[in-house]
């Protein structure tokens, strides 16, 4: 049991709550799915309830919702221009989803859905698929100009085009791995330091005295993780905006 307590990986285990198996695929309702539902309910509920009074002079909570809305709106407008505003619902839901998922994950015993690469990869693929589909719809084959920078000599194209292609293909990977790795690493670190507190205080009076240091560390890390949770949601949204800008204006 002692080993289980300090096991920093335990928090990432997927537990089946309602087993569902369709066509040989395991589609069970797991703790991960539960927290996706929780994230959606909390985020949507917050936005819905705080704005329900539609006050002209907003209260505190209504200001929070409005600030999030305008923050993402300005971010998108700065990165992709007014044309980019048609993607506002997508970017805003991505931002709110990642933000609330990260923040919920900070609660002890809560599951962090963004610490699973398949979740972040799914979101990243959604972004890149939107970019590709919209890019080809809007510009046709002209979207391929994205890979051909202007003003580069023809000889250099042999080198530049493959680099551009590789950089484009690596986008969903970097987008998803950045978020996933940050959340995973942070939660492991927190768990390790909290585990030190538990195992040290099991050693008697001296151990309890010695456990103050990792306890302080865990508190400081919690603050840091709060920052990381906000920052990674922001980074995810900003990069989404920049990639969408490529779909709107492929020739750079």
């Amino acid at each position: 049991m002692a080993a289980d307590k300090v096991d920093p990986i335990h928090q990432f285990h997927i537990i089946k709550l309602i087993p569902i198996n369709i066509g040989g695929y395991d589609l069970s309702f797991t703790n991960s799915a539960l927290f996706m539902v929780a994230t959606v309910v909390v985020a949507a509920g917050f936005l819905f309830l705080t704005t329900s009074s539609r006050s002209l002079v907003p209260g505190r909570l209504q200001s929070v919702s409005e600030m999030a809305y305008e923050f993402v709106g300005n971010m998108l407008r700065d990165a992709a221009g007014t044309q980019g505003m048609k993607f506002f619902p997508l970017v805003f839901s991505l931002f709110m989803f990642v933000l609330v998922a990260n923040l919920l994950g900070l609660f002890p015993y809560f599951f962090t859905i963004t610490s699973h690469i398949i979740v972040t990869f799914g979101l990243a693929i959604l972004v890149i698929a939107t970019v590709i589909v919209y890019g080809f719809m809007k510009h046709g084959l002209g979207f391929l100009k994205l890979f051909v920078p202007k003003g580069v000599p023809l000889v250099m194209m042999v080198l530049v085009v493959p680099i551009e292609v590789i950089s484009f293909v690596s986008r969903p990977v970097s987008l998803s791995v950045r978020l996933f790795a940050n959340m995973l690493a942070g939660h492991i670190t927190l768990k390790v330091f909290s585990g030190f507190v538990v195992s040290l205080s099991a050693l008697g009076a001296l151990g309890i005295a010695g456990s103050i240091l990792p306890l302080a560390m865990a508190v400081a890390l919690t603050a840091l993780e709060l920052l990381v949770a906000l920052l990674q949601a922001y980074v995810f949204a900003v990069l989404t905006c920049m990639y969408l800008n490529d779909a709107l204006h492929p020739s750079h």
Partner: protein
Amino acid sequence: MFVTSAFAQESAPATTEGDTHSATGVPAEAHGAFPPFDPATFPSQLLWLAITFGLFYLFLKRVVMPRVGGIIDVRNDRISKDLDQASKLKGEADAAVAAYEQELAEAKKNANSIGQQATDAAKAEADTARKKIEAALDQKLGEAEARIASIKASAMKEVGGIAEDTASEIVEALVGGKASKAEVAAAVKSVAR
């Protein structure tokens, strides 16, 4: 972060060992792999992500964002309307101030001219009064001077008489005998000259 990932790599094998030995509370689909990289959980997570995020997206797009956007638009409209109203009122106030100042300037000008007229009239009145008084005083002065001259003349005449009397008496006392009146008068007149 680097330290953390090193920790993760170190602790990962230990965990898997612990899991396979104890097998308590460890889900069956873990298979001892690092849970975030366990492909067995991918279909279920992707499905539920699609369902939850899809619903979230629709809810935000259909309900929340029109509402928040509406609130902000209404507020911006209201603010710009209020600003227009305020600038209109300010223009009116400025006009009123200008009109007031003009009236004030006119009133000042009127007051000045009225005051000037009043002072002029008062000055003229005072002048006439002064001239009248001066004339009266001049007249009185003339009368007084005439009187003084006549008194002086009569006094001189009497002085002549007294001198003649005194001279005739002195002559009488010194010489004895009477000097004729005409002689004395002639002598006095020659001395007085």
